[in-house]
């Protein structure tokens, strides 16, 4: 049975490097994927994951188990970092046009990183196309809607956890998720029409 987070966090706060290493090993996947879903680029996701962990390490003393779940806390720290990154990045502010050709840095990187070993090559290609489509549609959402959809439907956080992470009321969380899903579906619909049968 794995050691609970609370004990490891306590050890890490006392300065135990092995405990910190365990925490990084346990949560790096979630943080890395969260960053990647948000920015859509592997190199940026790596940089942001690193920054997020540095921030978590420095603020570990501020975390108390009574105030909430550790996962919610680290996701909250990462989310703040992602929003800061979004605000700083001028290129992110530019609306991505559907007419724009597929960006090699984004979609093809994604295609390459998806695990292989599907039942058939055709099914594999289709799944990769679908995943690329989803990522591209996610990038077209506003950051508020994007983070709500990512946290709920990709990171599978509960509505309450998302409310804690985003520091907004439950009703607003629900509303953002609803709008985000509808916008995501509309984006995918438009892209399917644009690219025709190849994306279908």
């Amino acid at each position, binding site marked *: 049975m794995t050691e609970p987070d609370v004990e490891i966090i306590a050890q890490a706060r006392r300065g135990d*490097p*092995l405990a*910190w*290493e365990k925490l*990084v*090993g346990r949560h*790096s*996947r979630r943080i*890395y*994927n969260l960053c*990647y879903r948000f920015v859509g680029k592997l190199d940026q996701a*790596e940089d942001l*994951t*690193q920054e997020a*962990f*540095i921030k978590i*390490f420095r603020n570990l003393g501020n975390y108390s188990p009574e105030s909430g779940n550790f996962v919610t806390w680290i996701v909250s720290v990462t989310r703040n970092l992602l929003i800061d990154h979004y605000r700083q990045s001028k290129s992110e502010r530019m609306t991505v046009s559907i007419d724009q050709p597929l960006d090699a840095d984004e979609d093809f990187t994604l295609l390459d*990183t*998806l*695990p292989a070993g599907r039942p058939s090559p055709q099914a594999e290609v289709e*799944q990769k196309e*679908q*995943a690329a489509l*989803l990522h591209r*549609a996610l990038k077209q959402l506003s950051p508020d809607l994007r983070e709500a*959809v990512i946290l709920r*439907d*990709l990171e599978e956080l509960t509505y309450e956890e998302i409310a804690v992470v985003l520091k907004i009321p439950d009703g607003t969380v*629900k509303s953002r*998720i*609803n*709008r985000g*899903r*509808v916008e*995501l*579906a*509309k984006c*995918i*619909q438009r892209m399917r029409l644009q690219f025709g049968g190849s994306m279908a």
Partner: protein
Amino acid sequence: MRLDCHEIEEYLSDYLDNSLEGEVLAEVRQHLKECPSCLGLFNEIKAALSLCEVMPQLDPPARLIEQILVQTTGKYQSWGLWEYFRDLFRPLYTSPRFATGAFLAAVSFGLALNAMGFSFARLSQLKLSDFTPRAMAQGFQRTVYLTYDNSVRRLNDLKILYEIQTRIDELRTQASNQPAKEKEKPASKKEEAKPQSSASAMESMVAMLWSPPRGLAEILRPVEGVDREEKNC
């Protein structure tokens, strides 16, 4: 209550989560039956959420974890022996191209070792002193000299064999031409000419074989024997 398409959109997500009740639920159901546009959007949302469920999670690269640890605690990752080897050989099982390259490199390394005089059969007899740069260079030099010596010897053997073959052909040609000349010339001259030609052929062969390469000693022994017997006669 009658909801329009825009209002229905706001309920689609809740409808998918089965969190609608009563009049609103009935209204959304009815609307989806009648409105193909909203039904299409609903199906698209459902498809997008299914896609989200099967989206694979990416593994963070090992070097990222390493960087995080160095940046925070300033220490490297504490790996066990198995984890260390698994990471060391990770490219072998993640990239077939790299695995092929590594195999070819191993074969080349084996050939180079062989050239330096290393043999797996002599593995138990090896000493630490055999791995000094001097010993390895000597082994390599020895192999190069042996290879060169063998090549030169074989080349010389071929040259000699070619010469012998040429001489034999010449003798045969002379022997076949001899009867025609005998008819034209008197009998006394015929007797003098025959030993002269065969003697000169034999002399040239002996001159040729006078200092044979060491590798041909076995081949030449019977030829010299025949030569001596002929001279004794």
